[in-house]
């Protein structure tokens, strides 16, 4: 590497890594990652066993409806309720008005009045919050099943025939792609999870560290050292050194956080089991979808995407004079990054749709979207090649533009350079 670039990289790197704020923000990032990994488990452990909902059943039908509802909802009595979402059915021989009073007094969460009309049809009246809330929906699903059983029974089906009739059918979810048919829903879920995570990671990295680059340029501008720097080295060397140096500082913060995150999410199941015992439900991200293909696509596009946005942020940094203006000036770029991210999220639903294909070629959105497509969809090899090529060309152009804006910034201290002034004849003849 060019000696001057090496010196600049070193300065940019160490001046950031040695800052106290660097250590603090690294610690905060790590805490956030640990929080995401363990917070659900810990919250569940602290809250303890959730109270199951209690529904009073007033059965005037003469058949044991509460007993028949139990398999669909939970338990008939207090003990023996299993799972977090069991509903306790409490049959009692009280009047409908008494049941209403219980609901009003919040002694129970709801009351189900069961009766039979003269034709023999079951009739259910549910008294709850009044709306079709989650509990009411679950009660409805259960009574629908029980009422179907009841009708079949009255039509004369035997106990065995009845059992077959209410068994759920075989049902699977797949995609239209031939390769996916072998794949279970779990594997597809894992790939979606990984793609989502990678998109989020790129999005956050570009936003956070892109701003670092813009601030680094503005720092040189506001401290007025720029003019010495362009005398000692060329703007291209300065830009390259800055982007690489800040990129390395970013990696120094990001990689340990990622490793910690990986370990934390891997340990999630084990921790949940220790804390919650058999109440633990399988959560977290399934890393089985991390193929070599996915990881290499991520690395290539992450690198190129970072370079592209770093150069653009540097260019924007050259246009402003004070740190306070950085956020406002970088707004359009931030919006572009967000469009890329949401594009990637929508891509997950239709990875090979026309929209996704366009977004995965356009350099500004390609890094995030193409990685998602590689993981979830089936981009043609030429699409990937075209995307990478366009991205490299754009990175080179963006760096040249940034160097030019940096140079113009030196010559126009204190002025707000308009786009036109950057290209007027005098400026066009900037040296080196």
């Amino acid at each position, binding site marked *: 590497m060019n000696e001057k670039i090496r010196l600049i990289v070193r300065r940019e790197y160490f001046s950031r890594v040695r800052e106290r704020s660097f250590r603090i923000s690294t610690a905060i990032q790590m805490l956030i990652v640990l929080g995401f990994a363990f917070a659900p488990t810990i919250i569940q452990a602290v809250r303890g066993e959730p109270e199951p909902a209690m529904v009073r059943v007033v059965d005037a039908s003469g058949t044991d409806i509460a007993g028949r509802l139990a398999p669909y909802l939970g338990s008939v009595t207090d003990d023996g309720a299993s799972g977090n979402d069991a509903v306790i059915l409490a049959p009692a021989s009280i009047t409908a008005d008494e049941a209403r009073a219980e609901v009003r007094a919040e002694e129970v969460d709801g009351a189900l009045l069961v009766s039979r009309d003269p034709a023999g049809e079951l009739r259910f009246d549910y008294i709850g919050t009044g709306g079709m809330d989650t509990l009411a929906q679950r009660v409805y699903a259960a009574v629908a099943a029980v009422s179907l059983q009841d009708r079949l029974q009255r039509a004369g089906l035997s106990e065995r025939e009845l059992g077959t009739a209410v068994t759920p059918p075989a049902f699977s979810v797949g995609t239209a792609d031939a390769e996916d048919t072998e794949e279970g829903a779990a594997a597809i879920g894992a790939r979606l999870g990984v793609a989502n995570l990678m998109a989020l990671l790129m999005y956050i990295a570009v936003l956070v560290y892109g701003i670092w680059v813009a601030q680094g340029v503005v*720092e040189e501008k506001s*401290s*007025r050292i720029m003019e010495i720097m362009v005398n000692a080295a060329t703007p291209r060397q300065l830009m390259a050194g800055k982007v690489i140096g800040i990129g390395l500082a970013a990696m120094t913060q990001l990689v340990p956080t990622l490793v910690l995150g990986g370990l934390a999410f891997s340990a999630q199941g084990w921790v949940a089991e220790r804390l919650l015992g058999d109440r633990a439900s399988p959560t977290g991200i399934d890393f089985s979808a991390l193929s070599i293909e996915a990881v290499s696509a991520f690395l290539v596009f992450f690198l190129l995407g970072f370079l592209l946005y770093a150069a653009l942020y540097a260019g924007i940094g050259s246009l402003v004079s004070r740190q306070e203006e950085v956020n406002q000036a970088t707004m359009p770029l931030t919006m572009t990054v967000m469009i890329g991210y949401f594009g990637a999220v929508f891509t997950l639903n239709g990875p090979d749709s026309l929209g996704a294909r366009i977004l995965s070629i356009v350099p500004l959105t390609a890094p995030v979207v193409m990685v998602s497509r590689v993981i979830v969809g089936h981009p043609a090899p030429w699409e990937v090649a075209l995307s990478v090529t366009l991205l490299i060309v754009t990175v080179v152009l963006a760096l040249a533009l940034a160097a030019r804006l940096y140079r113009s910034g030196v*010559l126009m201290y204190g002025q707000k350079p308009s786009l036109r002034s950057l290209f007027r004849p*005098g400026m066009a003849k900037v040296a080196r």
Partner: protein
Amino acid sequence: MALDIQGVTKRFGALTAVDDVSFRVEPGRIFGFLGTNGAGKTTTMRMVLDILRPDSGTITWDGAPNTTVSRQAFGYLPEERGLYPKMTVAEQLRFLARLYGASKAAVERALDAWFDHFDIAENRGKRVEQLSKGNQQKVQFLAAILHDPEILILDEPFSGLDPVNAAQMKVAFLELRDRGKTIIYSTHQLDQAQEMCEDVAIIHRGRIVAGGDIRTVRRSMGTRVVRFAVADDPLPHWVEAVPGARLGERRDDHVELLVPDEEVAQRVLRAGIDRGATVTRFEIADPSLYDVFLASVGRHPELADAATTRTPEPIAV
């Protein structure tokens, strides 16, 4: 070995910032580049440094175009001061000198020597933002010279220095000159320039209006100054009667007369003696650089009081 600027012109849109400027700076001599704010000094300096390129004309160092000269040959103290506020003094100077291309060992040696010269060795480990303004200025100067450049371009190196620091800076200047460096410096402190420079050029609205070695420039107006005083007559109007003599500035204890040559000066002296006056002071001198400067940029020299009522320079934007 000389820095040669030949017919250099630079335009920004409709504005001709530098118009057919030529001058030559010899090594081992201090060249004062003088002009009002906006006259074209900084633009010319940036072109010498190859930060800007001229529209026409050539700039050569030792016969070679400045664009081909190594960056290490140039030391630059910009008018807009600037250093990384959070780096320590030593770190910062090492970084910049190495960036210019100096070797590690040479940088350490120069660092020790110059820190001693400027009495700032105890500030090595301090951050620049913690230093006094005068010390920041000295560090800024070191940032321009530590890589041992051959050509020093210093934009107002003395502005903002107290007399003690200015004296240290002046010693440094003279030492660099004696080492054979080529030094261009711009200033508004003309009395100091008169004392320090071997050569000057005065630039006005982009054009060189006077230039050459300082003696020639001071005589270029075709006028000499007589410092004259007689007892009991603070303002001797009668000298105006001597053909060719004009009454100039009135000073504390004498008046300045402007005369075209020594012959007229002698006539003034004779006239005084003939009137029976007691002549207490009679001295023939060249006009000060300050007077020549004002005359060159179109201000009449008698209009301003050179020594006492100089207004502070407005801050250049």
